[in-house]
């Protein structure tokens, strides 16, 4: 059924269609509307049987999710930014224990400086935690990925993070096609746990493992993620067959077949990139877009396959590893090992800075002309950066950086966008 609703509400309804039995969450922007929506569905009785547990922190949210999932319940939670960091110890436990919890991460920057807006720093900080990480391009894809995530996670007994851009998707109203309950029920069978805490058949979960088997347990986690590389495209195809639209998968290409220049990115910026690439195509440039849908497991072969015919690759990402450069670009480089391609990393949109077609055009034009720096911070205000560096060179007590830069920028209230 077609609906014009907010992304968060769409995800809440999709999660409800997956019939979770336990939902535990602690509110944090921009995730709040999702769990509020689910709370209402549980309270009104539309989603039952389901227990909605208000917890006292994100650490508790993931801990309760672990307990619920270990007891055999289909379990869901959601978080963002500092909330994800606060639950990290439990996040690693969930994957280490092989519990198929599904969690939405409404992507948001990490402080300090405190910032509520969108980038991918939160999800990227957890790329090594053992969870599957799927990225959504649109609200339709976000809701579809949640339904696929339960199936994927439960088949492999692994937790899945569905990453959707905070505000840009969570707070955007757009058209979505909401699946029917009967179709979701047919697509997603009831949860059949591999391990369950049951008083009738007592077991323990979470044994201490010494050097004799720790490496093997960890290796099995990697082996399962490798299996997910096969399962993710299968589940996406199965989904397409039942629901009539393509969502998810490992990667998606847009006009890459004959492209000299391919932009690699993930999340909602793919839409703006496609529009920009179409404009450049109309002007005769051979450009394309590769969208990474599954960041963990990272589809090395599919990425290599899509990029190997190009002359240059621009990785555009909303995250970066301080002291190195790109996060996604490092992985893309592994996929391109041995190939002679020019590679550029463009860090953009940090802390919610708008990624505009104008800036993308300029950046891609520079890349096509091979005059782009290997590591570029798109739309960086070098003026205020230089001023702060001078301040620090001139005096010892130069003061707090964030406050200094805000003074240099001046009031933002008078700016239109």
């Amino acid at each position, binding site marked *: 059924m*077609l609906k014009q609703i907010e992304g968060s509400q769409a995800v809440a309804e999709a999660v409800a269609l997956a019939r979770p039995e336990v939902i535990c969450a602690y509110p944090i922007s921009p995730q709040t509307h999702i769990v509020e929506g689910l709370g209402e569905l549980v309270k009104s009785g539309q989603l039952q049987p389901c227990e909605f547990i208000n917890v006292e922190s994100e650490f508790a949210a993931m801990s309760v999710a672990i307990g619920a999932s270990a007891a055999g319940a289909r379990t869901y939670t959601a978080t963002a930014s500092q909330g994800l960091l606060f639950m990290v110890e439990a996040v690693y436990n969930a994957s280490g224990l092989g519990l198929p919890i599904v969690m939405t991460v409404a992507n948001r920057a990490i402080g300090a400086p405190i910032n509520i807006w969108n980038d991918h720093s939160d999800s990227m900080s957890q790329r090594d935690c053992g969870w599957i990480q799927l990225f959504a391009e649109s609200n339709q894809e976000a809701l579809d990925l949640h339904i696929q995530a339960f199936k994927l996670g439960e088949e492999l007994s692994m937790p899945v993070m569905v990453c959707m851009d905070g505000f840009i998707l969570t707070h955007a*109203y*757009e058209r979505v096609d909401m699946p029917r309950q009967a179709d979701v029920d047919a697509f997603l069978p009831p949860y059949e746990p591999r391990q369950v805490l049951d008083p009738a058949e007592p077991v323990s979960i979470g044994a201490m493992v010494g050097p004799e088997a720790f490496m093997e347990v960890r290796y099995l986690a990697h082996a399962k993620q490798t299996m997910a590389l096969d399962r993710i495209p299968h589940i996406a195809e199965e989904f397409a067959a039942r629901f009539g639209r393509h969502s998810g998968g490992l990667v998606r290409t847009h006009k890459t077949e004959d492209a000299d220049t391919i932009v690699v990115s993930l999340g909602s910026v793919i839409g703006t990139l*496609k529009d920009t690439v179409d404009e450049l195509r109309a002007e005769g440039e051979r450009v394309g877009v590769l969208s990474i849908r599954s960041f963990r497991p990272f589809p090395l072969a599919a990425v290599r396959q899509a990029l190997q015919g190009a002359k240059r690759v621009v990785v555009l990402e909303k995250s970066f590893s301080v002291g190195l450069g790109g996060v996604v670009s490092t992985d893309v480089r592994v996929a391109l090992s041995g190939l002679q391609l020019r590679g550029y990393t463009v860090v953009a949109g940090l802390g919610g800075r708008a990624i505009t077609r104008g800036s993308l055009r300029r950046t891609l034009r520079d890349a096509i002309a091979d005059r782009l720096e290997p590591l570029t911070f798109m739309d960086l205000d070098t003026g205020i950066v230089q001023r702060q560096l001078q301040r620090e060179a001139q005096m010892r007590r130069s003061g707090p950086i964030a406050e200094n830069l805000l003074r240099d920028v001046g009031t933002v*209230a*008078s700016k*239109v966008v």
Partner: protein
Amino acid sequence: MLQIRIHGRGGQGVVTAAELLSIAAFEQGRHAQAFPSFGSERTGAPVVAFCRIDDHEIRLREPVLHPDVLIVQDPTLLHQVDVFQGLPADGYVLINSRRSFEQLGLSDIVERYRTDRLTTVPATEIALKHLGRPMPNVALIGGFAALSGLVTLDAVSHAIRDKFSGKVAEANIAAAAEAYEYVTRELEELQRC
């Protein structure tokens, strides 16, 4: 693609206005996208929300930099924020005020833009009358329907019922209808001039 930018202050329902517009466009079978600027979300602070309407899927997610339509919910913003930034010469402007553009000190705007696309409507007064609250957003959407003809009043009423219920919905529908009539009359008078 039609792009709309709504300026107002926190607490005036700016974001809701953009969402309502997107629902009205959806009711008419079109693709629409509405999103806030996610800036200062404090009561009274300048707030911007955006809406795009098209006949096919909208992929673009940048803020609306070149609006076809500008809606100003609070005229006190006119001399604080450059609300007209990026507006093309054939753009539509709707301002919440009983005063004319000239009386608002916008004579230079009148010279630069098509006067048949510049209108004011006393949306706060209309809202106070119907809702008992100074919420100009829904009345302005009614005014927008009259000014642009890009969404019908009927679709706006549907959108209001989608988002609100009971008395609040009916009062908002009445406010939208009154603003629609007001702007229609204004445009007729303008044509006679």
